[in-house]
C-alpha cells in the first residue's frame, strides 16, 4: 500500500535511504507509533522518527512541560524515553512487524554515549539514524555538541566510525551560523541534515487575582507554525552550504508549506507539532501531495520538486 508517485530516495554518494513518501513524523511527536494506531493508517508515511533515545531510560524534566503560545507551543519534556535496551526489546519488533520505516533518533551527554548508541544501531542494522545534537531541554551535552562546529565535526566523525547506514544529523537553529554547522556535519561524514530543531523560548503567563499577581512560566523549545519563517531561512542557509539531502521541518501544517520548503532547499519533510492537533496530518498531507502531483501531470514527487526549484 502507499502512493506510488511519492517514492523518495535520499542519497549521499553510495548511501541511500528509500522511503515511500517524503513525509516523516518528527521525533517526540509520534512516540514509537503504537499510540497513534487507533487514529490513523501510517501506510502513507515515509517514515517516523522515534522519540529521542538515550543509553539509559530517562524520566525527563520535573514540573510543567507544555506551554501554549500563539501559533505554537513550548515544550520542556527533557528527553523522557524508555532507553535503548527497552527500545530494542519492545518497540523495535513492533515497528518491524508493521513494516514501518523509521529513523532512530538518538541523544547523549558524552561522545561515548553517542558512539555506543551508534554501535547498537549498527548491530541491529537500523537503516537510518537521526542524531539529536540540538535538544535545548537537557542540561548536559546534546546542545553543546550541536552549537560548536569543531565538537560537532568530532562527534559526527566518531558516530560515522561506528555506523555504516544512513546517517542524519538534526541541527539546532539556536546558532548565529548554521552554515558552519552544516559544513561540519558534512565533513564529519553525515549523509543528510534534518532541521530545524526547536528554538529556545520562554512562555510567561501572568494574571492578577485581585490581590496579587500569579505567574506561570516555561522555558524550553518553541515549535509550531510561528517558527516557519526561521526554519525556511535556516534551510536556505544549509542548502547554500552543502549538497547533502535536507529533511526540513518547522511549522509545517499544509501543502503550500511543503512547496515553500522545497524552494528553500528541502528534499523531504518532518511534521512535528501538527501531529498533536491533527493525528492524521501526515497521512492527509501525503494524500494531498500525491493528488496534486497526479492532477497536475507531474511524473512523481522528484519531478515536482525539480519544477518548484526552477521557480525564479
Amino acid at each position, binding site marked *: 500500500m502507499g502512493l506510488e508517485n511519492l517514492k523518495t530516495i535520499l542519497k549521499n554518494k553510495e548511501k541511500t535511504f528509500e522511503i515511500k513518501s517524503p513525509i516523516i513524523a518528527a521525533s517526540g511527536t509520534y512516540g514509537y507509533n503504537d499510540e497513534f494506531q487507533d487514529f490513523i493508517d501510517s501506510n502513507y508515511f515515509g517514515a517516523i522518527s522515534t522519540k529521542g533515545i538515550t543509553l539509559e531510560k530517562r524520566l525527563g524534566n520535573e514540573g510543567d512541560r507544555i506551554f501554549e503560545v500563539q501559533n505554537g*507551543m513550548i515544550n520542556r519534556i527533557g528527553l523522557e524515553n524508555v532507553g535503548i535496551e527497552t527500545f530494542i526489546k519492545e518497540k523495535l519488533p513492533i515497528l518491524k512487524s508493521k513494516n514501518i520505516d523509521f529513523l532512530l533518533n538518538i541523544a547523549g551527554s558524552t561522545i561515548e554515549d553517542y558512539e555506543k548508541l551508534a554501535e547498537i544501531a549498527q548491530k541491529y542494522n537500523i537503516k537510518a539514524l537521526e542524531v539529536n545534537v540540538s535538544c535545548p531541554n537537557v542540561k548536559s551535552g546534546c546542545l553543546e555538541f550541536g552549537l560548536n562546529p569543531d565538537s560537532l565535526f568530532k562527534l559526527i566523525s566518531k558516530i560515522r566510525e561506528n555506523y555504516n547506514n544512513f546517517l542524519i544529523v538534526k541541527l539546532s537553529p539556536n546558532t548565529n551560523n548554521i552554515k558552519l554547522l552544516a559544513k561540519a556535519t558534512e565533513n564529519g561524514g553525515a549523509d543528510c541534515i534534518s532541521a530545524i530543531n526547536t528554538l529556545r523560548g520562554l512562555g510567561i503567563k501572568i494574571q492578577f487575582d485581585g490581590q496579587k499577581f500569579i505567574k506561570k512560566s516555561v522555558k524550553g523549545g518553541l515549535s509550531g507554525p510561528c517558527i516557519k519563517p526561521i526554519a525556511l531561512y535556516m534551510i536556505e542557509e544549509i542548502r547554500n552550504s552543502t549538497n547533502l539531502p535536507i529533511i526540513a521541518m518547522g511549522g509545517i501544517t499544509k501543502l503550500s508549506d511543503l512547496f515553500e520548503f522545497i524552494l528553500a532547499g528541502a528534499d523531504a519533510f518532518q511534521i512535528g507539532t501538527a501531529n498533536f492537533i491533527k493525528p492524521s496530518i501526515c497521512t492527509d498531507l501525503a494524500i494531498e501531495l500525491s493528488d496534486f502531483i497526479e492532477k497536475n501531470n507531474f511524473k512523481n514527487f522528484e519531478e515536482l520538486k525539480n519544477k518548484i526549484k526552477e521557480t525564479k
Partner: protein
Amino acid sequence: MNTKANFKGEIIYIEKIAKDTCKMDISSPLKQANAGQFISIYCPNTTLRRPFSIANFENHIITILFKLKGEGTKYLSNLKKGDYIDFLAPLGNGFTIENKKSLLVGAGIGIAPMIFLKNTLNKKNIENYLITGFKSNEENIKGSDETIIGGSVLYHLDKIIKNKNIEIIYSCGPMPVLKGITELSKKYNIPSQIAMEKVMACSIGVCRGCIIKLMKNGKVINASVCKDGPVFKGSDIIWD
C-alpha cells in the same frame, strides 16, 4: 472493541447553565465512553486541542460542561446548535467502578465527570452521595446531593464518611482538594480514585507533556494524565 477515533460531532444542545459555564450535547458515531474519560476538541483559534471530561454519555450523545476561561472555550461558547466539532474520543482511563458505598466529590467544574459517574452508579444500584463545592451561588451547577457555596468541600467530608459508612471516594477538582481527598482516604483507610488535570499537548500519550509522578511497588514512575490517567488511585499519586 477499541473505538478510539477522531470524530465529527453535531452540537444538538448548547446553553449557559451557570455563571461563565456552558453545557454542550454532541451527537456522533461514538459507541462507548466511561465516566472519567475525556474528549479532546479541535479549536481553530488555538494551537492545541482542549480536553474536556465527559459529563454524560447516552445513546451516542456526549455531554460536556465547560467554564469560559480562554480562547478555546470562547470558541466553543460561540458555537450554535447544528454546528459540527472535531474531537478525539474516548480518551484515557475512566473510574473503576466498585460495588461500595461511594462518596463523590466535585469541586468547581470538576463536577463534570462526577455527574457521569453518579449516573453510572445509579444504573448499577450502587449507593452514592455527590457533594460539590462552588465559589459562589451564580457558579453552582445543579445535580448534586449536597452543595457547598464558598469555602472548601473538604471541611464537610468527615461527617459524611462517618455517617454514611463511606467505603470509597471518587473526586475531581483543583489540586488542593484532590490532595485533601487522598489524605482523608488514608485517614479512614478507604480507597480513593482521583481524576487529574494537567496541560496537554497531544492528549493521546505521545508527547509526554502531562506527566505526574506515581509511587508503584516502592518505585517512582512517570504516568501521563492523558493516557495512563486521567483517573489514578489516590494512594499512588506523589503530590508536587
